[in-house]
Protein backbone atom coordinates (compact mmCIF):
# COMPACT_ATOMS: atom_id res chain seq x y z
CA UNK A 1 0.00 0.00 0.00
CA UNK A 2 1.17 3.53 -0.76
CA UNK A 3 1.19 6.03 2.08
CA UNK A 4 1.61 9.76 2.64
CA UNK A 5 4.36 10.19 5.20
CA UNK A 6 4.66 13.96 5.45
CA UNK A 7 3.79 17.36 4.10
CA UNK A 8 6.04 20.25 3.17
CA UNK A 9 4.82 23.84 3.07
CA UNK A 10 7.07 26.16 1.11
CA UNK A 11 7.02 29.39 -0.84
CA UNK A 12 7.95 29.13 -4.52
CA UNK A 13 9.22 32.64 -5.29
CA UNK A 14 10.83 32.71 -8.77
CA UNK A 15 13.71 34.91 -7.55
CA UNK A 16 14.84 32.01 -5.33
CA UNK A 17 15.27 29.83 -8.42
CA UNK A 18 17.09 32.65 -10.21
CA UNK A 19 19.44 33.06 -7.22
CA UNK A 20 20.40 29.36 -7.43
CA UNK A 21 20.65 29.38 -11.23
CA UNK A 22 22.90 32.46 -11.21
CA UNK A 23 25.14 31.30 -8.33
CA UNK A 24 24.01 33.99 -5.86
CA UNK A 25 23.10 31.80 -2.89
CA UNK A 26 26.10 32.94 -0.79
CA UNK A 27 25.34 36.65 -1.25
CA UNK A 28 24.29 38.42 1.97
CA UNK A 29 20.75 38.99 0.64
CA UNK A 30 20.20 35.27 -0.04
CA UNK A 31 22.46 33.41 2.41
CA UNK A 32 20.03 33.45 5.39
CA UNK A 33 17.24 32.04 3.26
CA UNK A 34 19.26 29.12 1.94
CA UNK A 35 20.66 28.44 5.41
CA UNK A 36 17.09 28.28 6.69
CA UNK A 37 16.22 25.58 4.17
CA UNK A 38 19.21 23.37 5.06
CA UNK A 39 17.40 21.34 7.77
CA UNK A 40 14.49 20.64 5.42
CA UNK A 41 16.89 19.58 2.68
CA UNK A 42 18.65 17.29 5.15
CA UNK A 43 15.31 15.83 6.27
CA UNK A 44 14.41 15.14 2.65
CA UNK A 45 17.75 13.44 1.93
CA UNK A 46 17.21 11.29 5.00
CA UNK A 47 13.62 10.32 4.26
CA UNK A 48 14.04 9.80 0.49
CA UNK A 49 10.41 9.64 -0.64
CA UNK A 50 9.54 7.73 -3.82
CA UNK A 51 6.87 10.11 -5.03
CA UNK A 52 6.07 13.78 -4.50
CA UNK A 53 2.58 15.20 -5.01
CA UNK A 54 3.27 18.83 -5.82
CA UNK A 55 0.34 21.13 -5.14
CA UNK A 56 1.28 24.36 -6.91
CA UNK A 57 -0.08 26.94 -9.25
CA UNK A 58 0.83 27.64 -12.80
CA UNK A 59 1.64 31.31 -13.50
CA UNK A 60 0.25 31.65 -17.03
CA UNK A 61 2.84 29.23 -18.43
CA UNK A 62 1.25 25.80 -18.91
CA UNK A 63 -2.19 27.34 -19.17
CA UNK A 64 -2.92 30.52 -21.07
CA UNK A 65 -6.34 32.15 -20.82
CA UNK A 66 -8.07 29.74 -23.19
CA UNK A 67 -8.52 27.14 -20.46
CA UNK A 68 -8.22 27.76 -16.71
CA UNK A 69 -8.76 24.56 -14.73
CA UNK A 70 -9.49 24.94 -11.03
CA UNK A 71 -7.82 21.60 -10.17
CA UNK A 72 -5.64 19.80 -12.73
CA UNK A 73 -3.51 16.68 -12.29
CA UNK A 74 -0.57 15.92 -14.57
CA UNK A 75 -0.64 12.35 -15.91
CA UNK A 76 2.39 12.64 -18.20
CA UNK A 77 5.66 10.64 -18.21
CA UNK A 78 7.73 13.79 -18.17
CA UNK A 79 7.29 17.55 -17.86
CA UNK A 80 9.57 19.96 -19.72
CA UNK A 81 10.65 23.21 -18.04
CA UNK A 82 8.75 26.31 -19.25
CA UNK A 83 10.33 29.42 -20.75
CA UNK A 84 8.55 31.98 -18.59
CA UNK A 85 9.99 34.91 -20.48
CA UNK A 86 13.70 34.75 -19.61
CA UNK A 87 14.50 31.27 -20.97
CA UNK A 88 13.81 27.95 -19.20
CA UNK A 89 15.48 27.37 -15.81
CA UNK A 90 18.56 25.14 -16.23
CA UNK A 91 17.10 22.27 -14.20
CA UNK A 92 16.37 18.69 -15.29
CA UNK A 93 12.96 17.82 -16.72
CA UNK A 94 10.53 16.49 -14.14
CA UNK A 95 9.69 12.78 -14.22
CA UNK A 96 6.03 11.98 -13.64
CA UNK A 97 4.20 8.92 -12.37
CA UNK A 98 1.45 8.52 -14.97
CA UNK A 99 0.00 5.28 -13.56
CA UNK A 100 -0.36 6.56 -10.02
CA UNK A 101 -1.51 10.00 -11.22
CA UNK A 102 -4.27 8.39 -13.29
CA UNK A 103 -5.30 6.33 -10.27
CA UNK A 104 -5.52 9.51 -8.18
CA UNK A 105 -7.70 11.18 -10.82
CA UNK A 106 -10.04 8.19 -10.95
CA UNK A 107 -10.37 7.99 -7.18
CA UNK A 108 -10.87 11.76 -6.81
CA UNK A 109 -13.51 12.03 -9.52
CA UNK A 110 -15.47 9.16 -7.96
CA UNK A 111 -15.11 11.06 -4.68
CA UNK A 112 -16.82 14.01 -6.42
CA UNK A 113 -13.77 16.20 -7.08
CA UNK A 114 -13.98 17.12 -10.77
CA UNK A 115 -10.32 17.03 -11.74
CA UNK A 116 -8.99 18.17 -15.12
CA UNK A 117 -6.63 15.61 -16.68
CA UNK A 118 -3.46 17.01 -18.23
CA UNK A 119 -1.41 14.70 -20.46
CA UNK A 120 1.09 17.27 -21.72
CA UNK A 121 2.32 20.40 -20.00
CA UNK A 122 5.34 22.47 -19.17
CA UNK A 123 6.06 23.25 -15.55
CA UNK A 124 7.13 26.63 -14.19
CA UNK A 125 8.80 28.04 -11.07
CA UNK A 126 5.74 27.15 -8.98
CA UNK A 127 6.82 23.52 -9.26
CA UNK A 128 10.58 23.72 -9.86
CA UNK A 129 11.56 26.17 -7.10
CA UNK A 130 10.23 23.87 -4.33
CA UNK A 131 12.15 20.96 -5.90
CA UNK A 132 15.32 23.07 -5.95
CA UNK A 133 14.84 24.17 -2.32
CA UNK A 134 14.29 20.64 -1.01
CA UNK A 135 16.43 18.52 -3.38
CA UNK A 136 19.20 20.95 -4.40
CA UNK A 137 20.67 20.85 -7.90
CA UNK A 138 21.05 17.17 -8.91
CA UNK A 139 21.65 16.01 -12.51
CA UNK A 140 18.25 14.29 -12.35
CA UNK A 141 15.48 14.74 -9.76
CA UNK A 142 15.56 11.79 -7.30
CA UNK A 143 11.75 11.46 -7.13
CA UNK A 144 8.79 11.02 -9.40
CA UNK A 145 6.42 13.98 -9.26
CA UNK A 146 2.65 14.18 -9.63
CA UNK A 147 1.78 17.82 -10.35
CA UNK A 148 -1.52 19.12 -8.99
CA UNK A 149 -2.13 22.59 -10.38
CA UNK A 150 -4.64 24.87 -8.61
CA UNK A 151 -6.04 28.02 -10.20
CA UNK A 152 -5.11 31.04 -8.12
CA UNK A 153 -4.61 33.37 -11.10
CA UNK A 154 -8.22 34.27 -11.86
CA UNK A 155 -10.42 35.06 -8.85
CA UNK A 156 -11.86 33.10 -7.17
CA UNK A 157 -9.43 30.37 -6.26
CA UNK A 158 -11.09 27.32 -4.68
CA UNK A 159 -11.86 27.95 -1.01
CA UNK A 160 -9.57 26.79 1.77
CA UNK A 161 -12.25 24.38 2.91
CA UNK A 162 -12.54 22.83 -0.56
CA UNK A 163 -8.76 22.47 -0.71
CA UNK A 164 -8.61 20.84 2.73
CA UNK A 165 -11.30 18.32 1.72
CA UNK A 166 -9.46 17.62 -1.53
CA UNK A 167 -6.42 16.82 0.59
CA UNK A 168 -8.46 14.30 2.59
CA UNK A 169 -9.61 12.64 -0.64
CA UNK A 170 -6.00 12.52 -1.86
CA UNK A 171 -5.00 10.65 1.31
CA UNK A 172 -7.69 8.07 0.61
CA UNK A 173 -6.66 7.82 -3.07
CA UNK A 174 -2.98 7.30 -2.19
CA UNK A 175 -3.83 4.62 0.37
CA UNK A 176 -5.76 2.66 -2.26
CA UNK A 177 -2.74 2.48 -4.60
CA UNK A 178 -1.10 -0.97 -4.38
CA UNK A 179 2.53 -0.05 -4.96
CA UNK A 180 4.65 0.15 -1.79
CA UNK A 181 5.72 3.79 -2.03
CA UNK A 182 6.31 6.66 0.38
CA UNK A 183 4.71 9.91 -0.70
CA UNK A 184 5.49 13.45 0.43
CA UNK A 185 2.91 16.07 -0.45
CA UNK A 186 3.90 19.71 -0.96
CA UNK A 187 1.70 22.76 -0.48
CA UNK A 188 3.45 25.65 -2.19
CA UNK A 189 3.17 29.41 -2.73
CA UNK A 190 2.61 32.27 -0.29
CA UNK A 191 3.12 33.28 2.32
CA UNK A 192 2.01 36.92 2.60
CA UNK A 193 2.85 38.87 -0.52
CA UNK A 194 1.45 41.24 -3.09
CA UNK A 195 3.20 41.84 -6.40
CA UNK A 196 0.76 44.25 -8.01
CA UNK A 197 -0.69 47.73 -7.63
CA UNK A 198 0.22 50.55 -5.26
CA UNK A 199 0.02 48.20 -2.27
CA UNK A 200 2.73 45.88 -3.67
CA UNK A 201 5.27 44.76 -1.09
CA UNK A 202 2.72 44.00 1.64
CA UNK A 203 3.95 41.52 4.25
CA UNK A 204 2.00 40.36 7.30
CA UNK A 205 4.26 38.36 9.57
CA UNK A 206 1.57 37.95 12.24
CA UNK A 207 -0.82 36.47 9.72
CA UNK A 208 1.88 34.10 8.44
CA UNK A 209 2.83 33.03 11.96
CA UNK A 210 -0.80 32.32 12.85
CA UNK A 211 -1.13 30.29 9.65
CA UNK A 212 1.98 28.22 10.42
CA UNK A 213 0.75 27.65 14.00
CA UNK A 214 -2.71 26.68 12.79
CA UNK A 215 -1.45 23.94 10.49
CA UNK A 216 -0.92 21.69 13.48
CA UNK A 217 -2.89 23.42 16.28
CA UNK A 218 -6.20 23.94 14.48
CA UNK A 219 -6.20 23.35 10.72
CA UNK A 220 -10.00 23.43 10.59
CA UNK A 221 -9.91 27.06 11.77
CA UNK A 222 -7.63 27.87 8.81
CA UNK A 223 -10.18 26.41 6.40
CA UNK A 224 -12.59 29.16 7.53
CA UNK A 225 -10.39 32.06 6.38
CA UNK A 226 -12.48 33.74 3.67
CA UNK A 227 -10.87 34.59 0.31
CA UNK A 228 -11.21 38.33 0.94
CA UNK A 229 -9.41 37.97 4.27
CA UNK A 230 -6.32 36.49 2.56
CA UNK A 231 -6.35 39.35 0.05
CA UNK A 232 -6.94 42.11 2.59
CA UNK A 233 -4.72 40.89 5.42
CA UNK A 234 -1.84 39.16 3.63
CA UNK A 235 -1.83 40.52 0.07
CA UNK A 236 -3.43 39.73 -3.26
CA UNK A 237 -1.12 36.79 -3.97
CA UNK A 238 -1.38 35.32 -0.44
CA UNK A 239 -4.44 33.43 -1.68
CA UNK A 240 -1.85 30.85 -2.78
CA UNK A 241 -1.89 29.65 0.84
CA UNK A 242 -5.05 27.66 0.13
CA UNK A 243 -2.69 25.19 -1.56
CA UNK A 244 -1.04 24.52 1.80
CA UNK A 245 -4.45 23.36 3.02
CA UNK A 246 -4.57 20.63 0.35
CA UNK A 247 -1.28 19.40 1.81
CA UNK A 248 -2.56 19.62 5.38
CA UNK A 249 -5.82 17.83 4.55
CA UNK A 250 -3.82 14.89 3.17
CA UNK A 251 -1.94 14.32 6.46
CA UNK A 252 -4.82 13.26 8.69
CA UNK A 253 -5.30 13.98 12.39
CA UNK A 254 -2.50 14.33 14.90
CA UNK A 255 0.23 15.32 12.45
CA UNK A 256 3.37 16.77 14.03
CA UNK A 257 5.33 19.86 13.06
CA UNK A 258 9.02 18.99 13.06
CA UNK A 259 10.60 22.04 11.43
CA UNK A 260 9.73 25.63 10.63
CA UNK A 261 11.52 28.54 9.00
CA UNK A 262 10.31 32.04 8.17
CA UNK A 263 12.16 34.81 6.39
CA UNK A 264 11.42 38.22 4.86
CA UNK A 265 12.07 38.96 2.04
CA UNK A 266 12.68 36.98 -1.09
CA UNK A 267 11.91 39.62 -3.69
CA UNK A 268 8.40 40.70 -2.54
CA UNK A 269 7.57 37.62 -0.49
CA UNK A 270 7.35 36.49 3.11
CA UNK A 271 8.94 33.04 2.79
CA UNK A 272 7.73 30.14 4.91
CA UNK A 273 8.82 26.54 5.18
CA UNK A 274 7.33 23.85 7.40
CA UNK A 275 7.70 20.08 7.65
CA UNK A 276 4.77 18.16 9.11
CA UNK A 277 4.99 14.39 9.58
CA UNK A 278 1.88 12.23 9.75
CA UNK A 279 1.13 10.70 13.15
CA UNK A 280 2.14 7.18 12.01
CA UNK A 281 5.33 8.20 10.27
CA UNK A 282 6.34 10.39 13.19
CA UNK A 283 5.87 7.50 15.65
CA UNK A 284 7.84 5.19 13.36
CA UNK A 285 10.72 7.69 13.14
CA UNK A 286 10.72 8.22 16.90
CA UNK A 287 10.92 4.45 17.47
CA UNK A 288 13.76 4.13 15.00
CA UNK A 289 15.82 6.91 16.57
CA UNK A 290 15.25 5.41 20.06
CA UNK A 291 16.46 1.99 18.90
Amino acid at each position, binding site marked *: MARIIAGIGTSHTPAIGAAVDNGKTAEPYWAPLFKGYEPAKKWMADVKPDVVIMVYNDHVNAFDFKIIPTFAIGCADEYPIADEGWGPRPVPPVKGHPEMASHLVQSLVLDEFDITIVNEMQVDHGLTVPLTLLFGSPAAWPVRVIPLAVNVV*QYPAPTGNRCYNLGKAIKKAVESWDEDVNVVIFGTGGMSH*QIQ*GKRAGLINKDFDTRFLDGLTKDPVALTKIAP*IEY*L*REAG*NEAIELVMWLVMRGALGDGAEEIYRFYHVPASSTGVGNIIIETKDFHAQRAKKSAA
Partner: protein
Amino acid sequence: MDRKPQPYDDIPGTTVFDAQRARKGYHLNQFLYSLMSAANRKEFLAGEHAYLAKFPMLEEQRQAVMKRDWNTLLELGGVSYALAKLAFTDEHSYQYMAAEMTGMTQKEYMDMMIGGGRSVEGWRSKKERGEA
Protein backbone atom coordinates in the same frame (compact mmCIF):
# COMPACT_ATOMS: atom_id res chain seq x y z
CA MET B 1 -20.95 48.04 -19.52
CA ASP B 2 -19.72 49.50 -16.26
CA ARG B 3 -17.97 47.33 -13.76
CA LYS B 4 -20.27 45.78 -11.19
CA PRO B 5 -18.80 46.67 -7.76
CA GLN B 6 -17.35 43.85 -5.65
CA PRO B 7 -16.58 43.68 -1.91
CA TYR B 8 -12.82 43.40 -2.58
CA ASP B 9 -12.85 46.66 -4.56
CA ASP B 10 -12.49 48.28 -1.11
CA ILE B 11 -8.93 46.94 -0.73
CA PRO B 12 -6.67 49.89 -1.55
CA GLY B 13 -3.96 49.72 -4.24
CA THR B 14 -5.13 46.28 -5.34
CA THR B 15 -6.72 45.19 -8.64
CA VAL B 16 -8.26 41.76 -8.22
CA PHE B 17 -8.22 39.80 -11.48
CA ASP B 18 -11.80 38.57 -11.55
CA ALA B 19 -14.13 37.40 -14.32
CA GLN B 20 -15.08 40.96 -15.33
CA ARG B 21 -11.43 42.00 -15.75
CA ALA B 22 -10.53 38.68 -17.35
CA ARG B 23 -13.08 39.31 -20.11
CA LYS B 24 -11.78 42.80 -20.76
CA GLY B 25 -8.16 41.67 -20.66
CA TYR B 26 -8.42 38.44 -22.64
CA HIS B 27 -6.56 39.52 -25.78
CA LEU B 28 -4.11 41.67 -23.81
CA ASN B 29 -3.22 38.65 -21.69
CA GLN B 30 -2.97 36.37 -24.73
CA PHE B 31 -0.50 38.88 -26.24
CA LEU B 32 1.52 38.75 -23.00
CA TYR B 33 1.40 34.95 -23.05
CA SER B 34 2.93 35.00 -26.55
CA LEU B 35 6.09 36.51 -25.01
CA MET B 36 6.99 33.07 -23.64
CA SER B 37 8.76 32.41 -26.94
CA ALA B 38 12.20 33.93 -27.56
CA ALA B 39 11.36 34.48 -31.25
CA ASN B 40 8.20 36.39 -30.32
CA ARG B 41 10.06 38.52 -27.76
CA LYS B 42 12.54 39.49 -30.44
CA GLU B 43 9.85 40.31 -32.97
CA PHE B 44 7.92 42.37 -30.41
CA LEU B 45 10.96 44.43 -29.39
CA ALA B 46 11.83 45.05 -33.04
CA GLY B 47 8.45 46.65 -33.77
CA GLU B 48 6.07 46.90 -30.86
CA HIS B 49 3.00 48.41 -32.48
CA ALA B 50 3.13 46.11 -35.50
CA TYR B 51 3.39 43.09 -33.21
CA LEU B 52 0.54 44.33 -31.00
CA ALA B 53 -1.64 44.90 -34.08
CA LYS B 54 -1.73 41.13 -34.54
CA PHE B 55 -3.89 40.84 -31.39
CA PRO B 56 -7.48 42.17 -31.35
CA MET B 57 -6.77 44.36 -28.32
CA LEU B 58 -8.16 47.78 -27.44
CA GLU B 59 -5.95 50.57 -28.73
CA GLU B 60 -5.66 51.92 -25.16
CA GLN B 61 -4.28 48.53 -24.11
CA ARG B 62 -1.66 48.75 -26.90
CA GLN B 63 -0.68 52.27 -25.82
CA ALA B 64 -0.37 51.19 -22.18
CA VAL B 65 1.83 48.26 -23.23
CA MET B 66 4.16 50.55 -25.20
CA LYS B 67 4.34 52.97 -22.24
CA ARG B 68 4.84 50.10 -19.77
CA ASP B 69 2.07 51.79 -17.81
CA TRP B 70 1.65 48.91 -15.37
CA ASN B 71 -1.21 50.20 -13.22
CA THR B 72 -3.26 51.13 -16.30
CA LEU B 73 -2.61 47.65 -17.69
CA LEU B 74 -4.04 46.20 -14.46
CA GLU B 75 -7.14 48.38 -14.86
CA LEU B 76 -7.49 47.26 -18.49
CA GLY B 77 -7.61 43.62 -17.50
CA GLY B 78 -3.95 42.58 -17.44
CA VAL B 79 -3.00 40.08 -14.75
CA SER B 80 0.30 40.48 -12.91
CA TYR B 81 1.69 37.03 -13.83
CA ALA B 82 1.15 37.79 -17.52
CA LEU B 83 2.39 41.39 -17.20
CA ALA B 84 5.58 40.02 -15.69
CA LYS B 85 6.38 38.51 -19.09
CA LEU B 86 6.57 42.04 -20.48
CA ALA B 87 8.96 42.98 -17.68
CA PHE B 88 11.04 39.84 -18.37
CA THR B 89 11.10 40.69 -22.09
CA ASP B 90 12.70 44.00 -21.05
CA GLU B 91 15.10 41.94 -18.89
CA HIS B 92 13.58 43.21 -15.66
CA SER B 93 12.36 41.20 -12.66
CA TYR B 94 9.05 40.83 -10.86
CA GLN B 95 10.46 43.11 -8.21
CA TYR B 96 11.18 45.80 -10.81
CA MET B 97 7.59 45.66 -12.01
CA ALA B 98 6.18 45.71 -8.47
CA ALA B 99 8.30 48.75 -7.55
CA GLU B 100 7.14 50.59 -10.69
CA MET B 101 3.53 49.93 -9.73
CA THR B 102 4.04 51.50 -6.30
CA GLY B 103 5.71 54.61 -7.73
CA MET B 104 8.79 54.01 -5.56
CA THR B 105 12.34 53.83 -6.86
CA GLN B 106 13.92 50.38 -7.07
CA LYS B 107 16.11 51.20 -4.10
CA GLU B 108 13.24 52.51 -1.98
CA TYR B 109 11.20 49.40 -2.75
CA MET B 110 14.04 47.00 -2.06
CA ASP B 111 14.86 48.79 1.21
CA MET B 112 11.21 48.55 2.25
CA MET B 113 11.26 44.79 1.59
CA ILE B 114 14.53 44.26 3.44
CA GLY B 115 12.99 46.24 6.32
CA GLY B 116 10.18 43.68 6.57
CA GLY B 117 7.85 44.84 3.79
CA ARG B 118 4.82 47.12 3.71
CA SER B 119 2.74 46.93 6.89
CA VAL B 120 -0.93 46.13 6.47
CA GLU B 121 -1.75 48.91 8.96
CA GLY B 122 -3.42 51.69 7.01
CA TRP B 123 -3.69 49.51 3.87
CA ARG B 124 -6.72 47.38 4.75
CA SER B 125 -9.51 49.47 3.36
CA LYS B 126 -10.17 52.45 1.11
CA LYS B 127 -12.89 53.54 3.50
CA GLU B 128 -10.42 53.59 6.37
CA ARG B 129 -8.01 55.65 4.23
CA GLY B 130 -10.71 58.11 3.17
CA GLU B 131 -10.39 57.02 -0.47
CA ALA B 132 -13.97 55.83 -0.83
